[in-house]
């Protein structure tokens, strides 16, 4: 399966600042997915990053708050802008791997996550 590296693994940030999270995959992939896990909550998809086009955002997430870059087929960044304590979460990068599960079920492989604490 793909190996995904995320940086930073954790950070403590001040309110009002922005932080960019990097995601590197060891193979070329068409789509990369950014998820968020707020404390005690489930994982929620923020957006899908396609190389060469604008990211597609899920309901409740906007580009101004979570700008995404996808400069090539192995790399993506997610920026959390103008942070508030409510943005304290684990942010996870993932890629889809066809057929790791049963036929038709595309399985996601995740990075270790970036734990952000906003003071």
């Amino acid at each position: 399966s793909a190996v995904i590296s995320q940086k930073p693994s954790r950070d403590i940030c001040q309110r009002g600042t922005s932080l960019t999270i990097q995601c590197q995959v060891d193979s070329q992939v068409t789509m990369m997915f950014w998820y968020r896990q707020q404390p005690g909550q489930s994982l929620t998809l923020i957006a899908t990053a396609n190389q060469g086009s604008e990211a597609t955002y899920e309901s409740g997430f906007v580009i101004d708050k979570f700008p995404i870059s996808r400069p090539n087929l192995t790399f993506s960044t997610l920026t959390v802008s103008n942070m508030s304590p409510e943005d304290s979460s684990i942010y996870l990068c993932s890629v889809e791997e066809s057929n790791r599960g049963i036929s038709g079920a595309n399985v996601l492989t995740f990075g270790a996550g970036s734990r952000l604490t906003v003071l």
Partner: protein
Amino acid sequence: DQQVKQNSPSLSVQEGRISILNCDYTNSMFDYFLWYKKYPAEGPTFLISISSIKDKNEDGRFTVFLNKSAKHLSLHIVPSQPGDSAVYFCAASDIYNQGGKLIFGQGTELSVKP
């Protein structure tokens, strides 16, 4: 609206016994269900999946059961081992969103005691 629910935040089981983790869902359009395991400071890792046309899928010590009429699935781990101690997430995809969008439950923290 929580479409996938894991109502037990934690479960404690003795080593060697069976662990049963439960998951309920509301969306009848879900066609695949997956279980992920997550250790602290690591990303979730895929464990096992099941299609909505099946009622059981088995992989070694792990078996997933699906009851479509009840919109309920469960993960059985037999026998449980201390290394199974982790947070387990149930997830689902629907026929319109198979491209990377999974709907996750809140997770159940399993503790297997020696």
